[in-house]
């Protein structure tokens, strides 16, 4: 991206001024290096988002932003329903509420290392992962409705997970406003065998070691010490969410014209929030959020069962669960006035600052944990929401490393076996059903997440708290 077309607003904040049909400016966060390496398409897509009706303040791109479909991945935009604002299926994406959760274990890394092979094999045997894998849970129509309405709360009520988990999940584990009757028969059928499955691609379950602490006070509030073992799960709403994304992308792409919305790009498929289609989508998309929350809760339960067998002293309370691909109604200050906005985050993490009433008591002073996945080899980061993030980008932060090369390039460059052996030599055990999948997810295929994390911290979007490194990785 050409830096000359941007106005620098801060050390890590750049503005593309309004041109043409843009209703607000586009703002990109990142260091000079990150911005220079960023695809031109990010700015083009951010600028297109800025043309949508009812957009408030600016169209944002996080430091890990890359070329997506419609919205950039790493895009954040808020819309006001009282000013003709829209909801966009393209602004949420296919994997609705794909997200990350992190659990404590009460164990130290050396406790894991003593049983590392056994634990890796047991987790791989218990957690359904990869293309075509199926879960053990089959829901009838009424149970499916209850799951779509109840999310992780439903899972806990049915014996997967514990009540204490719920306050550590966004929306207390249950997305309000879900309307399961808006979820198609096809989406339900696609989910039939997929409850409690990890999926494939960049989804994973990792047992990790806390490697570094950058902010002692917040780390203490989060319950993290160097050498502690934690478990992190990255996955989403499985087939149901993918089908909802697919169906509404098509419906909104063809319906926008009827609502008098000129789409600069078909993929910006959207409908007015206050329209029949907008309301149907919100009801279905919120159901998919609940599906993702229930799915991660079930996977948590399976993980706890494995730990109970192998490391009975372990307790796995939830640190926090974040979602990346969502549209949520939130109250934000705009020109000093609180306004109820529909905030789209596509490949971006909500990052509530200290004192926010939606945070559980134990985390309220520290700010929301922001969980950022890296690659299999480089490790992941835990950050905390800041007070400034509200005014910077509606309390949003980055979500991951982003790919440095395509899957095809990675598959040509590495063999799965070679990646597994190299990581094993560094003490990281990989278990996956697909060697090609591992090659495509090789650490070298991802950008260095450090620069993204440092830019997120320097921009004030979220504060760097801890680095975690994998000991075991179950890869879909």
């Amino acid at each position, binding site marked *: 991206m050409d830096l000359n077309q941007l106005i620098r607003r801060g050390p890590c904040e750049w503005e593309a001024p309004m041109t043409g049909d843009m209703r607000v400016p586009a703002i990109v966060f990142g260091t000079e290096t990150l911005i220079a390496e960023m*695809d031109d398409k990010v700015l083009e897509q951010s600028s297109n988002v800025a043309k949508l009706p009812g957009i408030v303040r600016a169209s944002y791109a996080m430091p890990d932003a890359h070329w997506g479909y419609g919205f950039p991945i790493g895009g954040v935009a808020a819309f006001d329903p009282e000013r003709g604002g829209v909801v966009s299926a393209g602004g949420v994406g*296919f994997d609705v509420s794909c997200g990350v959760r992190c659990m404590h274990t009460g164990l130290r890394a050396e406790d894991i290392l003593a049983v590392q092979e056994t634990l890796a094999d047991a987790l791989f045997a218990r957690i359904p992962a990869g*293309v075509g894998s199926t879960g053990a849970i089959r829901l009838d129509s009424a149970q499916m409705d209850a799951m779509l309405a109840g999310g992780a709360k439903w899972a806990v009520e049915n014996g997967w997970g514990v009540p204490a988990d719920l306050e550590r999940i966004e929306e207390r584990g249950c997305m309000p406003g879900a309307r399961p009757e808006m979820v198609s028969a096809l989406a339900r059928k696609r989910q039939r065998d997929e409850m409690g499955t990890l999926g494939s*691609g960049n989804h994973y379950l990792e047992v990790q070691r806390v490697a570094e602490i950058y902010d002692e006070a917040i780390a203490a509030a989060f319950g993290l010490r160097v050498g502690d073992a934690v478990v992190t799960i990255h996955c989403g709403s499985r087939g149901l969410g993918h*089908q909802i*994304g697919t169906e509404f992308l098509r419906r909104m792409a063809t319906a926008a014209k009827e609502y008098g919305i000129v789409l600069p790009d078909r993929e910006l498929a959207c409908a007015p929030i206050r329209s029949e289609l907008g309301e149907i989508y919100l009801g279905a998309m919120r159901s998919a959020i609940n599906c993702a929350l229930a799915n991660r809760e079930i996977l948590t339960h399976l993980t706890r069962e494995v730990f109970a067998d192998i490391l009975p002293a372990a307790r796995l309370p939830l640190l926090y669960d974040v979602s990346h691909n969502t549209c949520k109604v939130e109250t934000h200050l705009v020109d000093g006035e609180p306004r109820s906005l529909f905030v789209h985050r596509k490949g971006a993490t909500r990052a509530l600052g200290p004192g926010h009433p939606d945070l559980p008591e134990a985390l309220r002073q520290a700010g929301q944990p922001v969980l950022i996945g890296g690659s299999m080899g480089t490790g992941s980061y835990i950050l905390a929401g800041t007070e400034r993030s509200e005014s910077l980008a509606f309390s949003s932060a980055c979500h991951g490393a982003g790919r440095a090369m395509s899957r095809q390039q990675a598959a040509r460059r590495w063999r799965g076996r070679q990646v597994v052996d190299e990581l094993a030599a560094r003490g990281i055990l990989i278990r996956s059903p697909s060697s090609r999948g591992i090659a495509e997810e090789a650490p070298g295929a991802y950008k260095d997440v450090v620069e993204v994390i440092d830019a997120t911290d320097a921009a004030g979007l979220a504060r760097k708290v801890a680095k975690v490194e994998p000991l075991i990785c179950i890869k879909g």
Partner: protein
Amino acid sequence: MQEHWEHYEHGADIGVRGIGATMAGAFEQAALALTAVITDPSGVAGNEAVDIACEAPDPELLLGEWLNALVYEMAVRRMLFGRYQVEIDGTRLRARAFGEPTSVERHCPAVEVKGATYTSLRVAPTADGGWLAQTVVDV
């Protein structure tokens, strides 16, 4: 002009492109490119046939419908397809996909496809009298 498929790069996702003598041939090749995201199409036996029908107001949206129908059938049947026969009549498509149940051991499936996007979506005649059909799929 030789019928073929290829992948093209798109950030975290993958572009699938089919080149055919006809629009239907390009759709068949694009479907093979879709299979190739997951596994080598030549390693998929065509023992079972699945009939697929869809329609859309224009050829580009029809390509999206076709690929999404395949994503759906692969997901709910837990199958992979290695060969396709497509007929297109105006805004309607009828097809038969030949494949077999997914085998983790034999097919070594790399990644599941979540859906076909409209990014770089294009269905158009080529300079040498054939057809091109392409879009990016989300993985």
